[in-house]
């Protein structure tokens, strides 16, 4: 059988695992695809190459396709989110000096207590907080703004969120250019290993079920090549299902640690995959449930309410029309394609394409195409609920 070549870009992060597994474990080949993975230097380069057709598909920060559909950053090429590649997986780290001051301010003993940790961070800051994120349009930035604004910090007056390339994050903390960061793995662990930062909070303590990376293609491409888009979705979804089997994580870690992919030791990759994080240079360990989720609780389903949440936050910050932003954002999360392509494979497909975001505090069974499916907790740390219908 001749394979159809498909070029997909990725950024070397633990959360690109489903793409790596789709290629290396033969799920792509099974679908007749020669899935060629291209390591890209920056999110902007990855986005531009996708938009201009140099790449067919991309491992993308969930807010990027939303921002693009709103006309923010780069060119306004319509993109489709075929599925969610990963949920959660970020960490907040602070400089060791700031960490010590936070302890004096009564920092949280509970690693998952975002409210106490956030207040300690605000109190311990000696001037305007400078926090590094990988990209202006990222869940990292959204989580930070959501968290610290809910605790009373005003942006940009008291909060300076800056773009710092993740490989430079540890150095930027060491050089005193930033006080803290929010970044995906392995970069949080690497900063801890380097002895320059303490991890103070996992991203999921701010929003328990935040869509992190999404599989994105040009809308023109998915319309022109629906069978190819379908094959890619099936391969990646099967890879995500494979990643949900605990016994497979050893292999996944081995694959990801290779030089062509994330290129760090398996010991570091394991921390994100198993949710056992070392939070300080002394080796203190914390276990975080669903620290990085690839599959369970319908993680791959591109909820239109997730797109609406991102668009609402972006439009408020950028001073854009909210209803208009939400409308275009919804359209790029293709829950319709997900249902038609992956439903027949046995993927859990909820009856609705939107849900209240933040309303679940525990696992719950809901109506699905096959009767019942399980959704996981998705609450925000301040227990506010986002109703996508009200944003209309």
């Amino acid at each position, binding site marked *: 059988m001749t394979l159809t070549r498909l070029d997909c870009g990725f950024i070397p992060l633990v959360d690109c695992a489903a793409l790596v597994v789709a290629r290396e474990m033969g799920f792509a080949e099974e679908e007749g695809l020669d899935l060629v993975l291209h390591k890209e*230097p*920056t*999110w*902007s*380069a990855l986005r*531009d*190459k996708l938009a*201009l*057709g*140099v790449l067919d598909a991309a491992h993308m920060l969930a807010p990027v396709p939303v921002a693009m559909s709103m006309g*923010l*950053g*780069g*060119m306004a090429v319509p993109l489709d989110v075929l599925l969610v590649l990963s949920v959660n997986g970020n960490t907040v780290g602070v400089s060791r000096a700031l960490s010590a001051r936070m302890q004096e301010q009564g920092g949280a003993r509970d690693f998952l207590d975002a409210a106490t940790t956030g207040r300690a961070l605000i109190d311990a800051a000696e001037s305007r907080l400078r926090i590094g994120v*990988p*990209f*202006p*349009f990222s869940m990292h930035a959204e989580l930070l703004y959501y968290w610290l604004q809910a605790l009373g910090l005003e942006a*940009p007056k008291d909060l300076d969120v*800056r*773009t*710092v*390339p993740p*490989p*430079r994050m540890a150095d*930027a903390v060491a*050089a005193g*250019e930033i006080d803290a960061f929010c970044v995906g793995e392995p970069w949080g662990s690497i900063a801890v290993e380097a002895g320059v930062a303490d991890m103070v909070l996992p991203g999921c303590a701010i929003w328990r079920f935040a869509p992190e990376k999404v599989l994105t293609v040009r809308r023109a491409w998915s319309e022109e090549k629906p069978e190819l888009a379908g094959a890619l979705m099936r391969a990646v979804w099967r890879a995500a299902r494979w990643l949900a089997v605990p016994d497979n994580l050893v292999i996944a870690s081995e694959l990801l640690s290779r030089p062509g992919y994330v290129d760090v030791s398996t010991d570091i990759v394991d921390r994100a995959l198993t949710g056992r994080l070392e939070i300080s240079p002394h080796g203190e360990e914390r276990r975080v449930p669903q620290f990085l989720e690839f599959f369970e609780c319908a993680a791959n389903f591109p909820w239109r309410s997730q797109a609406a949440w991102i668009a609402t936050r972006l439009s408020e910050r*950028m*001073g854009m029309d909210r209803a208009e932003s939400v409308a275009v954002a919804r359209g790029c999360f293709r829950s319709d394609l997900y249902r038609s392509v992956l439903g027949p494979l046995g993927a859990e497909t909820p009856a609705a394409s939107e849900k209240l975001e933040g309303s679940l505090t525990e696992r719950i069974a809901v109506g699905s195409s096959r009767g019942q499916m399980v959704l996981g907790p998705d609450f925000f740390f301040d227990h506010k609920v986002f109703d996508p219908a009200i944003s209309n």
Partner: protein
Amino acid sequence: MATGLKIAVVERDRDRAIQIIDGLMEAGDHDITVIGEDSGLARKLAMLNPDVVLIDLENPDRDMLEELTLASSPMERPVAMFVDRTDDRATQAAIEAGVSAYVVDGLRKERIKPILDAAIARFHMISRMRVELAATKAALAERKTIDRAKGLLMKAKGLSEEQAYALLRKTAMDQGRKVADVAAALVTASDLLK
């Protein structure tokens, strides 16, 4: 003729920066500044307030420039990634050459085009030189390895240089491998046995 534009080139490598400046000088009388240091990139750009920013598409610091496209950008004027929707090929050519350009909104296309064309030409030239350099380096490294392997064979088996090379070549042919690979294997093995 309109006065020149203020152009910032973000490039750490001095030789490459000079290449790019040379190319841009040919495109007109512009005020060109090179920013080589990566820390404080946004601040430096804000101080400079250029009309056009050119950066290598593969530059690992490029994401820091994305802030320029935001309303709260450190530059006072809104900036857009240069995309000429009327001429997709121009954008495509820029991407292929590996150059990305950020341009202040409202700047006329005719004024940008010669600059981008010059940048594209230079970036192409630089990437050709880069490929050539890499190829030369690889060839040199291979030759060195083969020389070492020959030396090992000559010493261990009392062969002449010619005989040693013939043995390497025969082994490579028998195994369907490259001479350089066989030589590298031999060198590694002998290092291990030391």
